[in-house]
């Protein structure tokens, strides 16, 4: 493997790992803000127990997101120095605004959110939670803007040295694909969290523990999913139209659409195929005639640009894009089924007892993450061979001085380190989930400012104890 491929694998690995945590914490921060709001409204300690339960999960996930995010912010310079040199004028300011408007906000209020329970009033604590949630959204905005500009660049010009310079920041930030990508990403993050909350609740109901909070959380998850999943499918469709307009080659790869359709034939929807890049055709293809045109162009006779319209050097790897897209859409369809089944069971009054629905929630709980990663692969692999679409090739963006050995060894180091960190993180998250929401001691008042806040990440419960005594 050459330096380019190794660097791409490394970037893909580091970002795939990282994206899971921000995505989860975007949704979780908002869930926490909602739960704390309910608590302030009702003063029912039940909500506070739920708050502190998810707060611990949030703390672990956020910690992993922060540390892997720091790695991300240096990857551009270490492995993609020429990208940084040439596109730094555009990307640098966007990332800088992310740090200024989001990271500091999250970090500044996170301490109060996690450790300041006894040190500030309830309202100030709620404000801190809201600021952390707001920070996650602002962060999503800037990072999605930077990524969208790399997908659909505009508002810049290229100077005599081949360096991107900004002519109009408004056009750079609000580039053509930003609205769709941003809405799609935020909904994906919310749905991912919703599935974890609902799945955890279903799991508690099946095990017969934490019944009351589980019922309440599951109901909230069902209502939220019933709104968000159909909305996500709608937004995804709009995003597809946008890709058709701005990144036709990516769309052709998504559909494994090799050759021009015959006049009046429309575009088939390829359900399954084994794309063969050498032969420029699909093997073992199962396709529905015309449906592709209807979905992708909203027209029975609609056509999309085929892959062979551009030379092979301009095409992304077809198979990974094709399959990743089908994983994402397949899981999205399952989520829609889950919503329908849950609503149906709710109407019949069997939502909390139906073994089928509960196990479906349980098994679906990690699928948000998988769909998110699959979607990310479609977006990122689909824009190859470019890093700035149509303008700067990935192969020309690489740091010239790094060697194969350096990238190989760093990839191994990242893989080992992340395996340890991720493995341990999952272990502690599993333990926290096993413990579940437990009654929190009431807030002591009047014991003075010198009393340190009891860190919420402390074990009130023996986490390494046997799971059996947790009931």
């Amino acid at each position: 493997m050459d330096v380019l491929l190794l660097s791409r694998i490394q970037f893909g690995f580091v970002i795939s790992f990282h994206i899971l945590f921000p995505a989860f914490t975007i949704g979780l921060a908002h869930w926490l803000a909602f739960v704390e709001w309910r608590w302030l409204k009702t003063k029912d300690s039940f909500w506070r127990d739920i708050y502190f339960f998810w707060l611990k999960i949030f703390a672990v996930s956020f910690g992993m997101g922060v540390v892997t995010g720091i790695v991300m912010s240096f990857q551009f310079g270490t492995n993609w120095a020429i990208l940084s040199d040439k596109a730094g004028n555009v990307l640098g300011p966007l990332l800088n605004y992310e740090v200024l408007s989001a990271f500091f906000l999250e970090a500044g209020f996170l301490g109060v959110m996690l450790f300041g329970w006894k040190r500030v009033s309830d309202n100030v604590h709620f404000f801190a939670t809201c600021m952390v949630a707001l920070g996650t959204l602002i962060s999503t905005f800037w990072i999605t803007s930077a990524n969208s500009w790399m997908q659909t660049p505009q508002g810049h010009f290229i100077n005599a040295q081949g360096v991107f310079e900004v002519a109009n920041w408004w056009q750079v930030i609000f580039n053509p694909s930003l609205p769709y990508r941003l809405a799609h990403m935020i909904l994906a993050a919310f749905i991912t969290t919703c599935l974890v909350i609902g799945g955890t609740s279903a799991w508690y109901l099946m095990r017969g523990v934490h019944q009351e909070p589980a019922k309440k959380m599951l109901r909230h998850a069902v209502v939220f999913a019933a709104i968000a999943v159909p909305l996500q499918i709608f937004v995804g469709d709009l995003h597809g139209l946008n890709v058709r307009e701005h990144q036709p080659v990516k769309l052709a790869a998504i559909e494994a659409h090799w050759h021009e359709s015959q006049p009046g034939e429309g575009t088939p929807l390829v359900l399954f195929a084994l794309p063969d890049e050498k032969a420029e055709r699909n093997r073992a293809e199962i396709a529905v005639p015309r449906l592709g045109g209807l979905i992708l162009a909203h027209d029975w006779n609609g056509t999309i640009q085929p892959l062979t319209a551009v030379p092979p050097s301009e095409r992304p790897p077809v198979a990974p894009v094709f399959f990743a897209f089908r994983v994402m859409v397949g899981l999205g369809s399952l989520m829609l089924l889950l919503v329908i089944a849950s609503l149906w069971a709710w109407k019949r009054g069997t939502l909390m007892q139906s073994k089928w629905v509960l196990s479906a929630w349980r098994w679906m709980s990690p699928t948000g993450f998988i769909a998110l990663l699959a979607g990310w692969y479609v977006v990122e692999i689909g824009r190859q061979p470019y890093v700035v679409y149509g303008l700067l090739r990935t192969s020309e963006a690489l740091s010239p001085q790094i060697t194969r050995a350096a990238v190989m060894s760093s990839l191994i180091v990242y893989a080992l380190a992340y395996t340890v960190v991720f493995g341990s993180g999952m272990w502690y998250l599993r333990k926290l989930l096993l413990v579940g929401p437990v009654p929190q001691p009431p807030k002591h008042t009047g014991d003075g400012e010198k009393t340190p806040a009891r860190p919420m990440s402390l074990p009130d419960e023996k986490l390494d104890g046997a799971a059996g005594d947790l009931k």
Partner: protein
Amino acid sequence: MSEWLPVAWFGVIAFGVMMYVLLDGFVLGLGILAAFARDEAQLDDMMNTAAPIWDGNETWLVLGGAGLMAAFPRAYAIILSNLYLPVLLMLIALVFRGVAFEFRFKAVRSKRHWGFAFAAGSILAAFAQGLMLGAIVQGLPADPQQARTTFAWFSPFAMTTGVALVFGYALLGASWLILKTEGNLRRRAREWIRPLIVAMLAFIGLVSSWLPFLDSRIMARWFEGNRFLWLSPMPIAVLVCAVMLWRAAAMRSHDARPFLLSYALFALGFIGLLIGLWPNIVPPSLSLWEASSPPSSQGFVFVGLVILLPVILGYTAWSYRVFRGKIEGGSGYH
């Protein structure tokens, strides 16, 4: 605008890096001193002094990175790609140091391992940062296309600055502990201060006397014209600070003084470094004007900085205020 904007940005990035060094410096110092914690409970206390604020402190590093990319993209590309392995070392170390805060308090059986990850991660991160500093001072090629070998940064000088920063951060960590703790832990922190002052002064002397042999330009900058007259108070100020710190370590009534003095020592060293670098952002030959992004980029973020930086400093200060005062030993660990 294109005249003063790069200078303003040089100031901003210097400020960001200094904030990082001063704020995350003492947290890394805690990790370096973790190796000397008497037991797990004492390490709990040490980590608890920083648990609510370490994340915000580390954010200054990201601001430094993103700011460099926005304002001086060429410098960002050159520094990070040439220092590939030290950067990797620092990042991995920071990953383990960071998750140790969360994981250690959740672990029972593996608690010691995360304590070790905290200590080793902090030492490695500090050492790697010192390595990078030494390698930058020594000089990097001015063109990102220019090839350097993977180990070009590897030199006795960079190793020395690496070790120097480990001692320096440990000094910050010890004076932070005096500020934030009581009883036995504070007593031990006082004992750590004096050997660390000796080590830090020895390394400052070693690095300063090594510099002229590395690159005459840095020394020329100090001795140019009558500049030395203007600058001569600096080494004297360093010595005065060191002596005051030495004495403050024994004064039981002044818990904040060692912290402020060790901050002053760091700030003086940092200013000396900036004077040596100026007007280059990547020594020996890439000036900050040559590395600058166009005014369309520098100006765009500068507006945001002017508006947001006071807000950030405001709520950061508020957050420190919320957690002011000493932590109580052993609290919350039942």
